[in-house]
């Protein structure tokens, strides 16, 4: 949250226009107006234009034909005359009404050449603005963070039948929570794809992208699948049960309500007004890319790191242990960038693996190098800790006692030392998954993986404050979840910890 305050208050907000084509094309007053509209869009300020004010005023008086009214035309033209504009009644009304509400009224004089012709983008404007405080913006952000769809979401008065109920889902064969009046038709549904249970019901809004994905919601950006359309044989809702199948990539689980007119063709294909479709794609979304690489890397790191750490501890000070120690020193001290490039160089030249993600012909192969680059450092740190815990336990009294009792070394290792040493390792599992995701900031950039980590670095280069805030919130919430999960896991596997209060002091 602090970061958000800093981002909102400290960054010069003009930087968001550096790569903006529209801003570059416009000039003079029009550019200023464009800046204000964008600022308003991203919540920096409230902004009212005199033209909108006039429009509202005259629609109230004359209805839809207001634009032909001579008074309206006269009032509109008034602000183009810098010497006399203050004499106009509507202008005075505009200034008075907004200044009394605490707005700052700005008059942009029309810019003309000496011969009286208006410069490009130089028409005069009269506007009222009011800055929004950082805390208000923060409040707005938090207020809109989670939205739950309700049956009142659709504003269409023609829709009378509003409900949320469990129905049989014709596309997966399971049951699904179906809504009418909600934005999405299928609120909760199951299918054969990871993570099997899908939610359209609850929507997390991370904010809006400023420059990179101009105005798109960031949650959509990171969830949007990439790649080619994935066409399958499907049936449209109205045709379910008939024998009319069609090759199409429409994802019927993601249907949303159509607020406009439904076309004649859609009326034959759909039973209701949920006709806005999205398409299935073959590629993974940004979030999925990051998670796939991060999860596989964590799994491999544990599968390799723990046995190696145990082996090192059992063969302490022998050649294998020394090699392991050198590996750990290399991985922990050398800048991660250096060895990631080393792996990249080895992988591309010796094994002919694809280097940049986008250029890969076989997509699966492109996952190999990033995963290895993430696995190896985590394996190193796991090895180090496992070895440390094992050696600590080996020197403790209860191990000496067990040995004196005549237990075999194998028994001592598997039943006593390993069981104690594994507890802190288990505590770290969620944090390690998180570390893989954060570590992916570097890896994803090196291999140009379209993932969340790369999104952050791209946003920094593109001055996209919206994405930076969103990524910060995303990673921070993940790390809090990881910590809580770690504590829960620890409580489950460590018999000494429990959340129930015990007797005694």
């Amino acid at each position, binding site marked *: 949250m*602090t*970061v958000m305050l*800093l*981002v909102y208050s*400290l*960054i010069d907000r003009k930087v968001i226009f550096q790569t903006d084509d529209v801003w570059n094309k416009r000039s003079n007053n029009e550019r200023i107006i464009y800046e204000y509209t964008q600022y308003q869009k991203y919540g920096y300020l409230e902004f009212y234009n005199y033209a909108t004010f006039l429009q509202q005023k005259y629609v109230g008086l004359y209805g839809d034909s207001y634009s032909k009214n001579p008074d309206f035309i006269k009032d509109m033209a008034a602000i183009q005359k810098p010497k006399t504009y203050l004499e106009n009644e509507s202008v005075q009304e505009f200034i008075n009404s907004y200044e009394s509400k605490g707005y700052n009224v700005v008059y942009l004089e029309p810019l003309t050449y000496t011969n009286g012709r208006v410069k490009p983008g130089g028409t005069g404007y009269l506007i009222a603005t009011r800055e929004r405080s950082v805390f208000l913006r923060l409040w707005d952000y938090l207020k809109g963070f989670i939205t739950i769809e309700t049956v009142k979401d659709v504003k269409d008065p023609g829709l009378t039948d509003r409900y949320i109920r469990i129905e049989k889902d014709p596309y997966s064969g399971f049951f699904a929570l179906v809504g009418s009046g909600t934005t999405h038709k299928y609120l909760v549904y199951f299918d054969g794809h990871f993570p099997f249970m899908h939610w359209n019901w609850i929507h997390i809004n991370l904010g809006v992208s400023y420059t990179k994905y101009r105005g798109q919601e960031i949650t959509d950006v990171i969830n949007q699948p990439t790649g080619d359309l994935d066409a399958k044989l499907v049936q449209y809702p109205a045709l379910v049960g008939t024998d009319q199948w069609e090759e199409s990539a429409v994802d019927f689980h993601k249907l949303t309500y159509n607020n406009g007119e439904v076309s004649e063709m859609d009326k034959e294909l759909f039973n209701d007004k949920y006709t806005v479709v999205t398409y299935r794609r073959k590629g993974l979304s940004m979030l999925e890319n990051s998670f796939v690489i991060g999860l596989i890397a964590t799994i491999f790191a544990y599968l390799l790191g723990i046995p190696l750490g145990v082996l090192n501890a059992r063969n302490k000070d022998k050649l294998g242990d020394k090699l392991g120690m050198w590996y750990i*020193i*290399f991985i*922990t*001290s*050398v*800048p*991660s*960038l*250096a060895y990631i*490039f*080393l792996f990249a*160089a080895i992988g*591309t*030249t010796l094994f002919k693996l694809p*280097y940049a993600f986008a250029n890969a012909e076989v997509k699966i192969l492109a996952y190999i190098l990033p995963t290895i680059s993430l696995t190896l450092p985590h394996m190193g740190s796991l090895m180090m800790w496992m070895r440390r815990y094992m050696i600590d336990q080996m020197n403790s009294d209860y191990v000496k006692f067990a040995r004196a009792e005549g237990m075999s070394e194998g028994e001592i290792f598997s039943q006593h030392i390993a069981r104690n040493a594994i507890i802190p390792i288990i505590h770290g599992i969620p944090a390690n998954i*998180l570390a893989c995701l*954060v570590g992916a*900031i*570097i890896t994803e*950039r*090196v291999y140009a993986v379209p993932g969340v980590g790369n999104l*952050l*670095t791209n946003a*920094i*280069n593109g001055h996209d404050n919206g994405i*930076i805030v969103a*990524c*910060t919130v995303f*990673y*921070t919430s993940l*790390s*809090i979840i990881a*910590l809580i999960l770690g504590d829960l896991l620890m409580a489950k596997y460590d018999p000494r910890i429990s959340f129930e209060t015990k007797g005694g002091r």
Partner: protein
Amino acid sequence: MSAKEKNLFTFIDHDTIESEKIIAPRYSYWRSVFRVFFKKKSNWVLLGLFLLLILGAFIIPMFAPYDPNENVTRAQYFHKSPAEAIRTFGFSFKWLLGTGGFGNSISYGIWSSAKTSLLLAVICAAINMVVGTIMGAIWGYSKRFDQVMLVIYNIIANVPYILVITVLVYIIGSGFWSFVFALTVTGWLSIAYFFRTQVMIIRDREYSLASRCLGSPITRVISKNIMPFQTSVIVTILARELPSYISMEVFLSYIGVGLGAQVPSLGRMIQEAQTAFLIYPWEFWPPVAVAAAITIILYVLGQNLADATDPRTHM
């Protein structure tokens, strides 16, 4: 005992002053530390390499000022491999490693950059260590302070460190001192937290309790009872922190929020060369190698020094 036997012995009076003296060789803590440290042959080699690096980083730039823009207008000098560069310019130390993407000398560049990296690491480490240990000592000692600090720590430590620094540098802009600020503004907190735990362990030892019961003031308890125990802890943290600042600089420059265009740095050199690191390897690997060498040497030296500062190894 006969009289003759009695004459064989002479009686010595009991001397109370003499009996208080300790005959064992004097134990000096720091002498023992260095004795243990230099007993290891590999430490001599590493220390030699480290001195060479320091001399290189601080003396070579004096005689060979690095100017990244000297050939920026002469496109024919861009991306020269070492062999080509020597053919073009004649054999000299300056062109030994070829030229970069703007005709800049790689071999001069890595030394100027190494200087920046080392300075950055030392300054950040100094600030973080001083603030971290002082705050950690108070934090570990005072229970009321502990409650407040734990809340602050939990809030800040939950955000991944890499993210905090990235966003901070982005917000306050690039440059050497803003970079130092970003690395130190929250960096001391984890050191202080680690230190707090160590102080707490010693604080509740019996001798420390006894000292307090006898009426030693807090400052004395901290400086005489607790701090001497922490030398090896401090050196261990230092060994971990110093290389991490260099890595952090490399990483941040790589993603484009580093020290800025004016300051030569290893991260910047890597960032400039990384797009074509397979085509122009001589531009990419030297700064990587220097960064790796500095961090490995610092890390291993620090670890060994930390081992030597532990009094248990002095036997």
